[in-house]
């Protein structure tokens, strides 16, 4: 269970600087909040896209979802947190607790 807003929690999952596929982050976040269903999943994916748009995370790899781990036929993105993202996260988490 997490008390952080969704986007901050997603950056927190990625804060170790390792590369994560979008479905990995989404799966973990859904577990944290007890979310279910495709609508929540797509909402969280949109959050990741928005985080990438403001350069808090950046895309490092992509592949087509052939097996349907996320959405069959769609693109899967692999992200890593950026320095900007880490800076914003440390500011966010220090104060949110």
């Amino acid at each position, binding site marked *: 269970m997490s008390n952080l807003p*969704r986007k901050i929690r997603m950056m927190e999952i990625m804060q170790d600087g390792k590369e994560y596929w979008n479905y990995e982050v989404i799966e973990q976040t859904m577990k944290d909040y007890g979310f279910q269903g495709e609508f929540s999943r797509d909402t969280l994916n949109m959050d990741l896209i928005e985080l990438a748009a403001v350069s808090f995370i950046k895309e490092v790899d992509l592949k087509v979802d052939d097996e349907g781990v996320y959405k069959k036929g769609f693109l899967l993105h692999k992200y890593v947190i950026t320095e900007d993202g880490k800076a914003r996260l440390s500011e966010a988490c220090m104060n949110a607790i």
Partner: protein
Amino acid sequence: MVDLQALRQAEHGRRIRFGYMWALFCAVLWGLWYIPGTVVWDLNPFDTMYADIAATSGDSMALVVTAILITAINAVTVVIALLVWNGVLGNYGEMVRTAKAFKPCSRWFLFASLFGGPVAILGSYIAMGFGGGAFAAVAALLYPVVGAGLANAWHGEKISKRAAMGIIVIIAGSVTIFGGGMITELQSGSIGWMGYLGGLMAATGWGIEGAIADKGLDVSSADVGLHLRFIAELGIWVIVALPLLYLAGYNVFSYAIQAFEPLTMLMFAFAGVTFGFCYVSWYKSFPLIGVGRGQGIANLYGMFAVISTILFFGDVPQWTVLVGGALCIVGSFIMFSEESLELETLRA
């Protein structure tokens, strides 16, 4: 072998299109908002309230006090409209989490509400009460210049030459639309300094609000952020502004109770729905296409305000409206046609 880059570009293009779509929704709804916003001044109890206060404290004071009460009730219906919206999206949990994260998120929405409510929306209502919807709309048209400039200065948001050009053409078009009407209003002497002050408040307030809210939006969701911003605004009116007016001898609460009559409430419901969802769309476009572009396209509200004025009030447009409308469309196409890969990341 699937062409990954082509798929990636297509996906990216979708994001940009969504952003522009939200900004366009915002423009349509915003243009509609000037209808209830203007009409409500002539309804009970605001017409008598204005006259009562004007008799004792003068026109300027009457205008400000009445505008404060109208803005406060406007905030109530927007909060209700957004309660429905976030309820459907299942966002109440996220709202509590975002509100609790004060420093990274809700602090920015509180600041945004200070500039959005008591500055921009109040200013707009003052301008509407003084010079009518057309005057209020034109007066605020410069706000994307403020917003794009601040977003660039504060968080290094990129403004391409093309986006800047588009914004300028849209502003030129919007000014042309209202130019004719404004000259008539000026000649008839119906606009005083309070009206101009209201217009200036709207332009700077909304520009600053957009740039500040963007700072909170980068780590929170737009629907939730906006709702918190309006709840904060409501707090400013109900906890601070209205009691202060009451202490100053203006019986705003008795007028507020009188506002509970069908036609007035219908107008406020109309204002709440159009304004609430215009604001949702506005906030949703920022993370996708940036504050500068989002506000630039949303500025098409000038054109939609004219269309809705024609439809609802039956005012026949002048030639300036047609020329200005054409300029607005040209300007937004300049922005739409931007190479979408330039928007891969919004910040430098």
